[in-house]
């Protein structure tokens, strides 16, 4: 079952991660199934796929929010899935998360000072005066003027500014792993560029390892060293960013990339025609390969046999019976 992922010296190891949500006594949503990926220290792994592919569920399972149904998540060799209560809280200082909706993820009734200081408060680090100094330092780092911002509340800030505040909060404990779940998706392009540049800069300054989830393939390519593509809860393809964008091998990856509207009127559009239809339900995923119902290359084997994850080139793994190699 274990994937030959070219055993790298992983800081974050996700192995056979499975997330299921019960619907009734019999039925359940198979949100993530046997997802395996390893992330080196200081590296950014991008996680892409369309809505319902399980990328957010996978990210939350890494955060133990909630803990996965099965599988293992190890951070720097320490298993996170078994941790409880105080132990988990202590471990959480090392991994933090930024969410999609910049405004909803900040408590509207708290001041920016209290919001950004909350992790220190929870971890029981420092005095109130020390907190204020740290908060000011963090706000400054993300490009928010602390003198003007500290005593104000989230509604007084724009989406981009709120996302900067979320970043300040996520980084105040100096975590080692930062999980970004659609962190720039709600922002306008000009503001998105500012926040992406900020994340890239802070990644260097804090020596962060990142798990970056987005539906936007251009954004993911921009920040990632390696990229994993998911479909219906399963890994399709994982490779270095340049490789996967230049030579996608899984039919789904190719479809996804061809659908990206390129800001260039003369760009050639080599579309892979999908079999018309809808994303199958994660309650009753198809047998064999999950993509087979829409894949133009699917054969009987794809229905009968779950494609094993295999390595086709160093660091390039796929789960497909009919990869597009040429």
């Amino acid at each position, binding site marked *: 079952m274990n994937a030959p992922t070219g055993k790298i010296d992983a800081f974050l190891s996700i192995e056979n991660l499975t997330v299921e949500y019960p619907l009734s006594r019999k039925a359940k949503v198979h949100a993530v199934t046997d997802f395996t990926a390893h992330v080196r220290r200081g590296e950014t792994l991008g996680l892409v796929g*369309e809505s319902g592919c399980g990328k957010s569920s996978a990210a939350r399972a890494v955060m133990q929010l909630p803990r996965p149904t099965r599988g293992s998540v190890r951070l720097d060799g320490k298993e996170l899935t078994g941790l409880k209560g105080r132990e988990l809280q202590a471990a959480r200082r090392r991994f933090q998360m930024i969410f999609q909706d910049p405004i909803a993820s900040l408590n509207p009734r708290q001041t920016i000072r209290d919001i950004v200081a909350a992790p220190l408060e929870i971890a029981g680090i420092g005095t109130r005066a020390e907190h204020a100094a740290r908060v000011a330092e963090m706000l400054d780092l993300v490009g928010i003027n602390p003198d003007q911002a500290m005593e104000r509340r989230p509604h007084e800030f724009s989406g981009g500014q709120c996302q900067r505040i979320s970043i300040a909060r996520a980084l105040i404990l100096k975590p080692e792993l930062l999980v970004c779940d659609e962190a720039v998706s709600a922002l306008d392009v000009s503001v998105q560029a500012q926040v992406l*540049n900020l994340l890239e800069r802070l990644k260097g300054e804090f020596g962060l390892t990142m798990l970056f989830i987005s539906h936007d393939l251009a954004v993911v*390519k*921009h920040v990632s060293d390696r990229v994993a593509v998911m479909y219906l809860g399963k890994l399709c393809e994982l490779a270095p*960013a340049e490789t996967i964008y230049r030579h996608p091998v899984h039919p789904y990856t190719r479809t996804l990339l061809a659908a*990206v509207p*390129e800001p260039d*009127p003369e760009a050639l559009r080599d579309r892979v025609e999908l079999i018309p239809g809808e994303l199958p339900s994660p309650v009753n995923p198809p047998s064999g390969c999950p993509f087979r119902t829409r894949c133009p290359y699917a054969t009987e084997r794809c229905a009968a046999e779950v494609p094993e994850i295999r390595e086709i080139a160093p660091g390039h793994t796929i789960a497909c019976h009919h990869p597009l190699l040429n």
Partner: protein
Amino acid sequence: MGETILEVTNQRTAFATGRGLLQAVDGVSFTLERGKILGVVGESGSGKSVLSRSIMRLLPGTAVTGPGSRVVLNGQDLMQMSEGELRRLRGPQMAIVFQDPMTALNPVLTIGKQISEVLTFHLKMGKRDARRKAVELLRAVGLPQPDVRVDQYPHQLSGGMRQRVAIAIAIACEPDLLIADEPTTALDVTVQAEILDLLQRMVRERNMAMVLITHDMGVVAGRCDEVAVMYAGRIVEKAPVTELFRNTAMPYTAALFASIPRVTDPPHRKLDAIEGRPPDLINPPPGCPFAPRCRFAEEACRRTVPELEGTATHQWACIKPLNREVAA
């Protein structure tokens, strides 16, 4: 050349707020011919959605339309029309597809009923004919199993399917003008591509005119004949799509292009972000609205608001346009 369908002249739309008048659309003019797609791009707050509602005359009561504003559709001045007259126009002559396919449909009516309603009201079709036509329309927009889906409710359909239904309703009476306001923003990329293909095909096949409103430069690049870039309620640049991308004149347009992450870029390239934020439309800065964020701005830019100028096909609102030494 072609037959002019839509003529918008000096459209100004403002909203009364607690802090004062917010000028959402500030003097927009353009014309659109049959068979053409005009892309309107801009960031949030640039006025593109208010513009679309101003054309459809679907503004809330708090909206204030400027005295010189004119919208002429097929030679009829919409400003002079009563609500009843407008209602008879919406559907057969102009229609709109909204961003959110979840809220644009009525949750307690079957989709067949929602399409038939348009047909019975405008085309005076009988129930049975309307239903037959509804199935036909659902097939035309690529909804799988149209004869089953016609009796289903919106919650039984996915987002992409709902958007197809919204398009079926919009084209039911074969309008001359279709306004698509961020029609694919809520959808996944593969579905987005299919919906945009569909809209493009409808415009060509039915010889309609379309205004495609989007924040995504990638969407306009592949789908439009002409593009208008909006900033702070104004059109700041307008040109045929290739000309706009290849021969950009307005610094804002150029800055917007530079800030887009592209799949063709190598990883970790630093983006040329535009610093600052769009202006406050209640108290706009003097002069060019982009001047406070523009790296080429000089004193003169902060004094007067630049008018759209340029050639017959390519216009910009900038006194220091890029790459224009020769043209000037």
